[in-house]
């Protein structure tokens, strides 16, 4: 039996060991994150088979819950930690060759810390511990956004830091209010006692928690930092921020709403907020000329769709939301990775500068195209089954509000298709007519970048063709979210 503590302890220890390794051999730093994340991926996959029946509860320090800090490795936690380890591993392989400038050992250390924080957030069963891991994630991502030390990066990092710090303070006030009422920090214990409290005294902590976590999750009125931060960071970091960080924020929001508060009254409001986020994100993305900003806004849109799907709160809805989350993680990470080398070769982030890239870097452009088609939701790719499940779940509720909102979501998808197809058109068909006989020299991305992109493409296509591979896991994860009594019982015994 593997212990879930290793998922946090090993990367955390290795992260702080990186500067020591770098003292002796500077090149060693970049090989440590792939090793640590590969280990995490193996442990997560080993655990994934075992946690279906009953979640693994680890009590730290030998006390029983609710008196100790505990880890809850249920289907949700292990699923998320597997996604984090998978995307993190592939992106860290990409970074082997991509990150050359600056203090590289600091980059790799912060990168590993970011993913440790993310893993901690999804595994912990203690709400203050969640705050601590959340801060590890946030602080390392502030620093990584500013990694290139250019004008745009520093400015975005300052914005991100100020908004993120206010968000975490609100989160901490919410935690303090909950502790004041219930005298416990264990999420299952709070969830068990919450029925005895008056609704009005729960409203303020809930709003504070959702607002605080919503800043990191980039829910609509709180997402002003996202396009700047995601577009100014190095591309490998953009991939992690878009593919992991905001998903972890959404996980925390879902955990607070479903498990801790069991609040069904707020769900229609969140569905509305999700669709607003979706439309705002897609419309802003449509008007961008900068490819990374476009991808960043598209992330906002996707987050909106996931939030909407989670807010449906039926078994299909939450499964669809988690499926969309997986599909967004894989596709958006792939898009940012492919865009990274396209920008590097073109020397500009403008979409118009990418004309004719389809012939200069055919493999990278193919990867970009597959990622784009998958996000839009075209059939053979992973985006199709996930969006299909969400539409089906919304229609199955037979409630007017969800049916109207899913109509708006499909409108958002049409806009999404429009701007992604425009980029694909620029890549392959623009700038070719004028000089058909000229054969531009081909300069592909290096192998360390192509291999992770290839693995992403394979995953996107395979899961897209055969969604049954993941639906069982997603289903049991959705059950954990929706069935809070089982969660409470399994933790408190």
């Amino acid at each position, binding site marked *: 039996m593997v212990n879930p503590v290793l998922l946090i302890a090993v990367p955390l220890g290795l992260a702080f060991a990186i500067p020591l390794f770098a003292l002796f051999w500077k090149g060693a730093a970049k090989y440590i994150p792939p090793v640590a994340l590969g280990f995490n991926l193996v442990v997560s996959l080993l655990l994934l088979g075992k946690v279906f029946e009953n979640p693994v509860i680890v009590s730290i320090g030998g006390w029983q819950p609710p008196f100790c800090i505990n880890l809850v490795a249920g289907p949700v936690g292990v699923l998320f930690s597997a996604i984090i380890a998978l995307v993190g591993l592939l992106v860290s392989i990409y970074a082997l060759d991509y990150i050359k400038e600056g203090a590289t050992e600091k980059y790799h250390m912060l990168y590993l810390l970011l993913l440790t924080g993310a893993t901690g957030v999804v595994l912990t069963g203690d709400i*203050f511990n969640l705050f*601590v891991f959340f*801060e590890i994630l946030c*602080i390392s991502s*502030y*620093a990584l956004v*500013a990694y290139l*030390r*250019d*004008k*745009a990066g*520093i*400015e*975005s*990092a*300052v*914005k991100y*830091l*100020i908004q993120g*710090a*206010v968000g*975490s*303070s609100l989160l*901490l*006030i919410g*935690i*303090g209010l909950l*502790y*004041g009422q219930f*005298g416990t*920090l264990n999420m299952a214990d709070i969830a068990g006692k919450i029925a005895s409290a008056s609704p009005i005294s729960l409203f303020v902590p809930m709003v504070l928690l959702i607002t605080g976590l919503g800043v990191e999750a980039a829910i609509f009125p709180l997402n*002003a930092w996202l*396009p*700047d931060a995601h*577009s*100014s960071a190095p591309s490998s970091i953009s991939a992690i921020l878009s593919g992991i960080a905001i998903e972890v924020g959404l996980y925390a929001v879902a955990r607070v709403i479903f498990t801790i508060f069991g609040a069904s009254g707020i769900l229609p409001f969140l569905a509305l907020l999700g669709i607003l986020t979706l439309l705002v994100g897609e419309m*802003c993305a449509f008007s961008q000329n900068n490819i990374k900003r476009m991808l960043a806004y598209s992330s906002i849109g996707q987050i909106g769709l996931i939030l909407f799907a989670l807010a449906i709160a039926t078994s299909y809805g939450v499964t669809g939301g988690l499926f969309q989350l997986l599909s967004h993680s894989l596709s958006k990470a792939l898009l940012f990775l492919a865009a990274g080398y396209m920008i590097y070769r073109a020397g500009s982030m403008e979409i118009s500068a990418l004309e004719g890239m389809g012939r200069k870097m055919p493999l990278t452009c193919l990867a970009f195209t597959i990622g784009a088609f998958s996000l839009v939701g075209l059939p053979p790719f992973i985006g199709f089954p996930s969006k299909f499940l969400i539409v089906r779940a919304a229609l199955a509720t037979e409630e007017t509000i969800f049916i109207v909102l899913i109509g708006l979501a499909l409108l958002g998808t049409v806009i999404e298709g429009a701007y992604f197809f425009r980029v694909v058109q620029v890549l392959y068909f623009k700038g070719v007519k004028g000089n058909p006989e000229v054969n531009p020299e081909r300069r592909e991305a290096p192998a360390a970048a192509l291999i992770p992109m290839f693995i992403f493409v394979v995953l996107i296509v395979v899961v897209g063709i055969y969604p049954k591979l993941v639906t069982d896991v997603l289903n049991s994860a959705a059950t954990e979210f929706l069935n809070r009594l089982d969660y409470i019982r399994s933790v408190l015994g």
Partner: protein
Amino acid sequence: MSFLDNYIYYIGAFGLILIGLYIILVKHNLIKVIVGLGILDTGVNLFLISVGYITKGTAPIFSRPGIDSEHMVDPVPQALVLTAIVIGVAVLALALSLAIRLYQHYGTLNLRKIREQRW
């Protein structure tokens, strides 16, 4: 006056939180905004401490003789605050180092003049 006696810490804590938020929202100078973040953090920490405080409380040390457990304060919020202070210091240090970089790039700390990134 008993209202004040009972709630003075909460009033002070939320006063500090509101002052901090006001500074962050209104001030143009990045250093002042960072000071605002510091005040906000302090307010939150004071709030957490006052959640676990009882009037005329003592430290919860059981090994010392002659102390009854009724007057002991709750130690958990103090442990939380210790962690929160450390996190707050890390954020402030990072913010100040970013402020130095920002000044090197723009020659100003006025956030209204630094607006290259926009929607």
